[in-house]
């Protein structure tokens, strides 16, 4: 029940192109059982994030409320509501990696990037996220850059990963 004469759009509206692409994602998946998570993954894969303006359309397609969809998106750290940097680096902070030197890597990242976890560098080159186990403990410490897992990371190897992302030295 919205009040009169007051707009309540949660974010910028979708442009026509995004709207079409979104429908292309939702329509074939809407009928499958438990469609919400697969749809959210597909949207994030397509747009790099789940724009809040997508939520009403997803909710409507699945006959859920906006609140329910918002609750799911905000519950999972992997889903993001704002665009990430050009690259996403996820550093594992779980026990095995910490035991094998992940804290040093964390300090290295914070100092070189000048940002903390869940943040993006000012030039938009990279977004830093924590992750709790990538299943690569035997090769700890581990990080994931744009979906690719890198094991046995040293500060030198991490530095070259950052270089490859165009991060200033």
């Amino acid at each position, binding site marked *: 029940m919205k009040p009169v004469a007051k707009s309540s759009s949660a974010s910028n509206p979708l442009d026509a192109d995004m709207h079409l692409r979104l429908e292309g994602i939702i329509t074939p998946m809407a009928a499958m059982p438990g469609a919400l998570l697969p749809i959210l993954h597909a949207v994030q894969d397509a747009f790099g994030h789940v724009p809040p303006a997508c939520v009403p359309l997803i909710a409507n397609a699945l*006959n859920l*409320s906006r609140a329910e969809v918002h609750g799911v998106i905000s519950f999972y750290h992997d889903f993001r509501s704002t665009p990430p940097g050009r690259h996403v680096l996820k550093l594992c902070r779980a026990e095995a990696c910490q035991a094998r030197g992940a804290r040093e890597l964390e300090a290295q990242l914070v100092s070189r990037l000048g940002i903390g976890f869940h943040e993006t560098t000012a030039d938009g080159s990279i977004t830093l996220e924590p992750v709790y186990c990538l299943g690569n403990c035997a090769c700890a410490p581990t990080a994931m850059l744009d979906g690719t897992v890198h094991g046995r990371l040293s500060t030198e190897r991490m530095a070259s990963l950052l270089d490859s992302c165009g991060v200033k030295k």
Partner: protein
Amino acid sequence: MRSKFDPDLGTPAIQSLDTLKLVQLSINGIAVRVPAGTSVMRAAALNDIQVPRLCATDTLDAFGSCRLCLVEIEGMKGYPASCTTPVAEGMKVTTQSTRLAELRRGVMELYVSDHPLDCDTCPANGHCELQDMAEVIGVGDTRYHHEGANHFREDANPAFAAPDVSNPYFAFDPSLCIVCSRCVRACDEVQGTHALTIQGRGFDSKVAASQDQSFLDSECVSCGACVQACPTAALMEKSVIAQGQPERNEITTCAYCGVGCSFRAEMQGEDVVRMVPHIDGKANHGHACVKGRFAIGYATHAERITKPMIRASIHEPWTVVSWDEAIAHTAREFRRIQAEHGRDSIGGITSSRCTNEETWLVQKLVRAAFGNNNVDTCARVCHSPTGYGLKATLGESAGTQNFDSVRKTDVMFVIGANPTDAHPVFGSAMKRRLREGARLIVADPRSIDLVRTPHVQADYLLQLKPGSNVALLNAMAHAIVEEGLHDAAFIALRCEDASFQRWLTFIREPRNSPEASEADTGVPAASVRAAARLYATGGNAAIYYGLGVTEHAQGSTAVMAIANLAMLTGNIGRPGVGVNPMRGQNNVQGSCDMGSFPHELPGYRHVSDNAVRAEFEKDWGVGLLAEPGLRIPNMFEAALDGEFKALYIQGEDLAQSDPNTQHVTAALSAMECIVVQDLFLNETAKFAHVFLPGSTFLEKDGTFTNAERRISRVRKVMQPKAGYADWEITQLIAQAMGYPMHYTHPSEIMEEIARLTPTFAGVSYARIDELGSIQWPCNDAAPEGTPIMHVDEFVRGKGRFMLTEYLPTTERVNARFPLILTTGRILSQYNVGAQTRRTPNSLWHSEDVLEIHPHDAEQRGIAEGDWVGIASRAGDTVLRARISSRMQAGVVYTTFHFPFSGANVITTENSDWATNCPEYKVTAVEVTRVSQPSEWQQRYRAFSDAQQQLLRERRMSPTPAAP
């Protein structure tokens, strides 16, 4: 905050057949027997053993998140949560031990470490469940200090979120929230809006509305279920924050819609602090809507008139007079007019907003003191066809079920009703059952909310053309008969064979087939057949209908067609089925029962019935007329003919609510003495000569009868602001006119009602107090009332199938008026709006708008928000346009809550053939872009302003006296 006067058993009662099977277990060594399926927590609570809890409450399903209700159960590993563990035979439960105490203390320390400790200044102080638990569990010094991350220190913590005070009635303070999810679950389970969620996880968890918006900007419908469910002050009524907690309470009944919710009015002295729906209320089970719970500010609004006033002409200022003078003047005028123009030149109007007792007195005043039968009621313009149609077919002028029957319904057929807006609490009950898997057929010109709302999806939306209900209902019956889906055994046993055979021949005629009627209804035959099949074969099928059925030229025919369908498929006489009229106002059923019609004495017995009349004559000590009196429209005609001169109107606003406003106001202007008894200077009062200040439902004792025939008490919680309750005013008029009425309390009126009305024979205030509420018929055969009617046989014996020939309305579209206007209500406003417009509810709906289909709008060059003129044969008005694909092309829609909208300037005098119920739902119109209000609106504004001025200029009488 739940009412502290309602004990909480922690988890809901089990609703299943197994409830008859009792399970024995022992709790703390005490042998306990409870229905199978009951939770250990509830079993303990039922035996006065309280298990600590925070996330559990008996209005919501168990959730198991707070981990305070852990118990030990012999043979079970660990410490199961008592809220989610069902009882089992022979179970041995321990609710208190050293280990349990340690575990609970550990949890409580965590809760308390993230909660401000300024309980003294908290609005929930003394009635906060967190505080209670801290007390019970004993948290002295917490090991976790307040210095670390928390949600309540604005200065130190990024997780702090400021209170959301956007809703006019309640505030949300996240710093006080313990994330028990009770509010989220209440919104999901009880209200069914799903507007809330827990956003984030772990320490970030926060209650959020929609996509982390303010409550006001979200889908929240402000029902307040979350506020009631909150165990702390996180969600709290602003009135409690401002006024403090109530000290006493009184159980009463809501004065808004026909659901008739039971409430606790929680009071401080003479002030209502808040209204809390009563957990044991049988119509609402502890739920309410934005109107009943919050919109009561009108009762103390500055515009209320609390002194009687008179004037010789409506162009003069009012004179404030004493009650004695006002009553004497009224009686004198009525008698003078009767002497000059005849006995039949005066009449009275009863109100569906007043109590049964008050309605009874008004019709008694008319019949016994006026000496005629010129009494009618606002039900004339809403559900009179229900009375007529159901009486003719089933034998009683009322719905067949109780509301709880919906819990056993498998197929709902909703036609011409919009429950989530107009009957929100029952709408929520419907949604709950639909989420459990019941199927849904909706027949409506407009796609109502129920058609598609989170977790609810109608199987069929039959978007018919306004005015074609009968054609659609006939087509469904035709399809059922043709496919042999009718219940032949039920019909043979329960219905009149001759009427059925005659009807069968009629309905089988090809013109009644879905294919033939497609042209009239606009609904594809295949959908009609599929919906008919579902209704006939889907299990327990119930029909819910509202004014979209009755307010038509064939309103009575459609009601009979509905009854035919129910009888045809055997869907009557047991839980889960039936014919359910959704009554518009709180006491429509009651005002009809109380003999408010010019042709019927109380209990729907014709005035020409000598035996019945004799009973009344004996009891009332006066002769009664055997000829019916005038209906409202006849009164207007007679007034314009100069034969009808005076009207006593109790709590009704004819000038706004009756069709063809200009005709109504002309008739009112032609009368010599109009007496309006109301809270405010309503539209009718602007034409009145005497104003008698009425009382709100909070200021008097009485009873209301809701849509399920449930008689509930209205209890006085404060003194009448004007000195008298409405029944007392009617009594004073009767006395002044020389007819004795000497009731000292409404209970005495109820005794008279019970004495003279067979269906009320067993009703008394004492009995209502004992049972909570009673559904009539209540008599020797049914001493506790009758939740479901027509169980073994119909009230009239055998059910009668009535022929329901479809005749299109004469109100047809043509080149000049190519669109059909239909009308309805919105959630936040109520009928003529006299009450809700004087509350913050107007924040959600501050003016009536015209909904128009995008195609129709485009053709006329109309954009969203444009001023549009709506013209019909009767008149024209101007509203703002809202482009809406809820509409079908060719149909426009508006609500009628604001007098300036003039919705009834457009509606015509066409009416139901049997009852004169106006055809509000079908008016041929044309819509055009305009730049200014209509001529009528400009005249209205000038007249209304002048009347307000005359009110402001009111003079004191030379001899004022206190009542």
